[in-house]
């Protein structure tokens, strides 16, 4: 065993583990379970079948099956890189002011009372997860005046879909994660009645995480009427809304429409947090452009909450990266760019809608049992097919078509070349399995 001063074995490694034991200091680290997505992707990569299709990815894929850069984004990046006035220095921990201002406006609407009354501020974050994490940390730190109670967080069911969200809140130190009823398998949509029942039972001051649009992974969103009823309950039960806006404009090509829930809550005088991402709607996946919007009840609180956010950021990532945010700020600040951007987005959105239509129609023609209207009732990138675990496994094992275990698929990954095979596969999954 190793003794102090014993000679180094040239080819071996001298250890600084326990004296008398050859243990690595990392011995206690267990192998973390792979996320279902990682396992799925590995399986897909090893799959040699000629017609294999991966429908579980998170990015938007073009008709050619690739992720791509919006033409406008590419041009702006070129302009920015040729700009001689860029200064390489640390940005503020809260991010680029031009970006946070635009991101705040795009979520709340320029004339929002919250903005006019200086009750809203934003923090640029390295992506959507980081925005949720920052919001969770803010809530945990200052819930109920910093008392020991750190509150409860409600996520939409099924909880397995919200797995990563739950992990973020737990990492921020909020262990109590519960669910409220959301997706109903039989109705193949949102069950409002059960949702309201669950929230009615939530302890006061609980945080309720609600998807403003493009609910992941079901694609099933709440109607305006449903929002009105939910917000009434949230206000009456004194719950705190944490809204998610991961893909604004990607649902129906309309910025305002996707942000309506955020604007509605703010107009009701509610306090809220909203995590936004610009990855999807700008094709800036690799650049981690996220934003946490904070709307307060009183503007006297703004500075202190902002400083706390700053403090939290400084020990997490110190400052966000600027590249992607500059692109977004440039587009959102320029009317001509906005028009061009909306047009490029429109073609993406329309393609997704078309794929949903065509898939539904194909299944109808094949005579696939069941009702497939939910495919076109939902919007955005993701589609909750309603297929069960067995059927999903059938698809991957026997047909080499990969969906998330919960039965969700990315519609953009379907294209002219694989549509027939995929429709046929779904048909077989439904009719073949017991």
């Amino acid at each position, binding site marked *: 065993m190793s003794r102090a001063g014993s000679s180094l074995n040239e080819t071996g490694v001298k250890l*600084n583990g326990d004296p008398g034991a050859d243990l690595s200091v990392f011995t206690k680290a267990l192998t973390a379970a792979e996320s279902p997505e990682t396992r799925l992707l590995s399986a897909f990569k090893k799959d040699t079948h000629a017609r294999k299709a991966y429908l579980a990815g998170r990015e938007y894929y073009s008709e050619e099956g690739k992720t791509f850069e919006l033409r406008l984004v590419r041009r702006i990046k070129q302009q920015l890189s040729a700009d001689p006035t860029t200064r390489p220095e640390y940005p503020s921990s809260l991010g680029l002011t031009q970006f946070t201002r635009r991101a705040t406006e795009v979520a709340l609407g320029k004339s929002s009372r919250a903005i006019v009354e200086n009750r809203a501020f934003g923090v640029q974050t390295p992506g959507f997860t980081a925005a949720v994490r920052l919001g969770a940390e803010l809530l945990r730190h200052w819930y109920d005046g910093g008392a020991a109670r750190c509150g409860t967080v409600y996520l939409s069911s099924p909880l397995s879909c919200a797995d990563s969200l739950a992990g973020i809140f737990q990492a921020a130190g909020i262990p109590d994660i519960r669910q409220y009823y959301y997706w109903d398998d039989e109705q193949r949509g949102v069950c409002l009645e059960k949702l309201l029942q669950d929230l009615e039972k939530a302890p006061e001051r609980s945080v309720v995480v609600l998807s403003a649009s493009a609910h992941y992974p079901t694609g099933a969103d709440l109607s305006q009427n449903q929002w009105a009823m939910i917000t009434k309950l949230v206000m009456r039960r004194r719950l705190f809304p944490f809204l998610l806006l991961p893909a604004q404009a990607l649902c129906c090509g309309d910025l305002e429409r996707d942000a309506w829930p955020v604007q509605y809550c703010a107009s009701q005088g509610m306090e809220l947090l909203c995590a936004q991402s610009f990855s999807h709607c700008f094709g800036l996946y690799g650049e981690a452009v996220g934003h946490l919007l904070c709307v307060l009840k009183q503007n006297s609180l703004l500075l202190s909450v902002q400083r706390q956010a700053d403090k939290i950021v400084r020990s997490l*990532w110190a400052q966000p990266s600027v590249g992607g945010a500059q692109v977004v700020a440039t587009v959102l600040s320029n009317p001509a760019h906005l028009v061009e951007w909306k047009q490029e987005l429109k073609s993406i959105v329309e393609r997704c809608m078309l794929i949903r239509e065509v898939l539904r129609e194909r299944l109808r023609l094949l005579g696939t049992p069941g009702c497939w209207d939910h495919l076109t009732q939902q919007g955005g990138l993701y589609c909750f097919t309603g297929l069960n675990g067995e059927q999903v496994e059938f698809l991957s094992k026997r047909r080499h078509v990969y969906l998330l275990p919960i039965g969700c698929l990315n519609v953009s990954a379907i294209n002219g070349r694989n549509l027939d095979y995929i429709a046929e596969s779904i048909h077989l999954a439904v009719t073949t399995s017991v």
Partner: protein
Amino acid sequence: MSIFSDVPLAPPVAVFKLTADFREDGNPQKVNLGVGAYRTDDCQPWVLPVVKKVERMIVEDGSLNHEYLPILGLPEFRSASAKVALGDDSPAIKDNRVGGVQALGGTGALRIGAEFLRRWYNGVNNTATPVYVSAPTWENHNSVFTDAGFKDIRPYHYWDAANRGLDLAGLLDDLEKAPERSIFLLHACAHNPTGTDPTQDEWKKIAEIMKRRNLFAFFDSAYQGFASGNLEKDAWAIRYFVSEGFELFIAQSYSKNFGLYNERVGNLTVVAQDSENLSRTLSQMEKIVRTTWSNPPSQGARIVSKTLNCPELFAEWKGNVKTMADRVLLMRDQLKSKLQDLGTPGTWDHITQQIGMFSFTGLNPKQVEYMIKEKHVYLMASGRINMCGLTTTNIDYVAQSIHDAVTKVQ
């Protein structure tokens, strides 16, 4: 009632407040020696020529995919970072027991490392493991480890104010007395804020005690290449520890040596006993990253990776880094000479003995206040100056101001 009603107003961060005050100062002779970034002789931030070149290449490259990066980051970036830190011929790399996690700057790397250690080191979820940081150290070190959950952050002796150098005896004593398995945060080179590094012999003594007492070495490496102008020299301590068989972490930052402050490029290099321990460790780090930022930003990592992995670009980068390091060395030299020429009381050897961006001048808080208020020369209350704030234009004024501060203010 707002749920945020009781949020107390946190004080502003000192160094940013200093810069804000500097901006508002209307005096034409004002000098900012507080900021922690490189400045040219014209007092401008500097985009490294190699970075500009590589950025254009990336923008023009039509073949790049635009997907999310893997959670652990760009693979070519991570492997190149390990090589930069440990050397191309590192036996540890050849043994497949070195890995990396791309992170948001040096801070991100520190945080991921800290979160891992709090969960999996010295037992499971042991928040009581003592974490030692140098006295003084970069303020954020404290926050990162505290927010990662550690309850016991302690200082270790480092700066000897009386002798304006390293308090080696104090340091070694702290190492001997630290509970076994304690974590020690070490600055790989160019100590922030003192600029004072242990010599090679002093590093050997530190390593000997740490090995004997099973202390964990967590290196903060934010200035590789920037300190001496030589990558290998600035990595000597890290490489020595690895050759001595330590398992360790290195939080690397490319903010200063690539001038990529705003792209947040960092890497947490992990050296483990063997590849099996390494992969378990990385799997847990992936889990931690998933709940922090999930996928790191690609831009900065692409720039660094392209540069490090291409021999010509790598050589060009080393030249750029040396340019920055040389300018700092020149300013150190000139400041010391001018103070000596002015006959400023005290010894000023520490200015050229210290290394890297920062220098602990030894000015006391009253003298610092005088510098700021009367001379409009902005520096940290600790007496720390950023050598990059000095230029051939302002160095005479600064030297004179220091002279006045030392002679007029006790």
